[in-house]
């Protein structure tokens, strides 16, 4: 039962504005991903919420209570660190029960709770192992169990899965999400992996240069990116300069395209703009026609599951992805037409 409200929060390290005037609302019980490239301020934001850094300006409210002046150890949050930070001198059960020990819980109760939590993270019967005996995935789960030991008000995770190999990482993403849904704990995860964010989050918060670029459900962000940074960072996209004429018609690479009802023209757009269209929403036709943009095939990549065709149109390279079945009969060097699926385009300020 915890909601978080962040008001005009900022943090500076010397000259660097790591977090630069952020406003956010995180509703109770949601799974939130802070997503962005390295150095975008996402980890700093998480550490500010945790109380491990002191804010330079602004406020953090947890359930309406200003957190300023409350030290990290009195906030009753749980946290999983990037290095996991499991205590090497303690056993698995002692690690998990450490937050309880600090709070004066008795030995028997602690042991019981550690067993419960190990069951919860699907690692039964390893209470007495040493941390050094565990595999990477097991350590991961122990760290998660420790973070959840006190039924924290907030569950914070800093790049928790970055040390795992790709397959295990995908598996743990799903598991973490299921665990959170079961416990309904408000969770904030920092990640630089957009697939991870899309897999787990109710709300994705895309950050760059200390600012929130866009916040919302993952599919909204994918479909309706607020700006070219978000469009480019979430999945792959084609960013094509264009000019907005009156109404819903735009001029793209010398051709006029009329947008449909479903397409989004961001409100801050006027005159020259950028059209974002996903590769899966670009079709390559064997012949250039009136309603298509002409171009020349530069490269074809057949990945088995899908086929990727790069087409050079003027000085731009535009990518199209289709299933093998729909692969057009084209070859490198051939002049083709490009068709943009209306309904899936976003026009944004340049």
């Amino acid at each position: 039962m915890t909601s978080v409200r962040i008001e005009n929060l900022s943090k500076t390290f010397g000259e660097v504005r790591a977090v630069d005037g952020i406003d956010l609302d995180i509703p109770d019980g949601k799974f939130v991903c802070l997503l962005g490239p390295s150095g975008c301020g996402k980890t700093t934001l998480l550490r500010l919420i945790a109380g491990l850094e002191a804010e330079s300006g602004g406020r953090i409210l947890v359930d309406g209570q200003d957190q300023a002046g409350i030290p990290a150890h009195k906030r009753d949050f749980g946290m999983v660190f990037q290095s996991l930070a499991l205590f090497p001198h303690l056993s698995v059960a002692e690690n998990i029960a450490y937050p309880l020990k600090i709070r004066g819980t008795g030995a028997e109760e602690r042991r019981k709770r550690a067993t419960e939590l190990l069951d919860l993270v699907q690692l039964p019967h390893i209470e007495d192992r040493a941390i050094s005996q565990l595999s990477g995935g097991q350590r991961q789960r122990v760290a998660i169990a420790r973070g959840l030991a006190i039924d924290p008000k907030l569950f914070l995770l800093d790049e928790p899965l970055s040390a795992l190999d790709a397959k295990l990482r995908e598996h743990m993403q799903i598991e973490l999400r299921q665990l959170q849904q079961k416990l309904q704990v408000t969770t904030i995860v920092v990640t630089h992996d957009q697939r991870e964010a899309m897999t787990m989050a109710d709300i994705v918060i895309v950050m760059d240069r200390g600012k929130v670029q866009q916040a919302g459900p993952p599919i909204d962000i994918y479909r309706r990116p607020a700006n070219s940074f978000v469009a480019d960072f979430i999945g792959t996209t084609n960013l094509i300069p264009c000019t907005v004429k009156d109404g819903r018609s735009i001029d793209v690479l010398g051709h006029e395209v009329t947008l449909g009802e479903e397409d989004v023209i961001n409100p801050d757009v006027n005159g020259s703009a950028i059209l974002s269209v996903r590769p899966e929403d670009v079709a390559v036709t064997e012949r250039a026609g009136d309603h298509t943009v002409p171009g020349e095939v530069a490269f074809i990549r057949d990945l088995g599951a899908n086929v990727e065709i790069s087409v050079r149109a003027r000085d731009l390279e535009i990518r199209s992805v289709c299933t093998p079945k729909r692969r057009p009969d084209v070859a490198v060097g051939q002049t083709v037409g490009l068709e943009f699926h209306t309904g899936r385009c976003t026009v944004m300020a340049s």
Partner: protein
Amino acid sequence: MTTPSHRLSARPLAIYPAAMLLVFFLIPFGIMVVVSFFHRVEGAFFEPAFEFANYARFLSPFFGKILATSIGLSAAAAVIGVVVAFPFTYFLTTMPRRQQTVILVFLLSVLSLSEVIIGFAWSTLLSRTAGVSNLLVWIGILDGPQAYTPSLTALLLGLCYLGFPYAVLVIYPALSRLDPELPEAARMSGASPVAAFFNVIIPVMRNTIVGTLILVFVFTLGAYLLPQVLGRPQHWTLSVHITDQAIFQSNLPFSAAMAVFLLLVSLALVGITMLLSQPKGQRS
């Protein structure tokens, strides 16, 4: 570990350093051990023999007391030094790199100070004419300046001063490589910074702490000048007597026997401490 297909350096490289260390380190040690069984000759150095007389000689209350004094003083200096050095080094590693560098330059300068200079500096600092007591008089705590040296406290202070920079430099690498998220994890678990220090940092650093204690102990055991400058004759340690016998009494065999004995005692203590610190299993 896999062996590289070709060595990075040629085997003959080892010949020169190995020979130097053999001739100038191992052989001197060997000779010292041999000499400790020799017979002393008045007016010359010694003559070959095989007798335990030199060892038998310090199985007396007199030398027993000297040994106890030496060990007690060094142990006290090591404990005090490490107790202060550990938190100091921890704070040091959390400072910005630039400040760390300045403090490290200072520490290295103190570390390299000759025992003679340390002895002289402390005897001046604790003297009647130029010492801290003048400061205390000026503040109004004392009526007249006093001399605090020679005394046991002065000697202990000096030994701590001698051992402290070593302690810091041995602890420093381990602490600065410590995962900074470990204490943070403790804090997020509800531990105050002080609790995190005692619950997490000290236990994790246990082996380093024990190692540092041993090193500082052995190092101060070798102090030769400080007991003479800052202590009274009854505070003279085994090191002082070793040198005294070797140089002024010209009794090399006896001196060598004491050195061998000191070596064995330090090795034994090092061994015992290591054994005690070894088991590291599941205890609550």
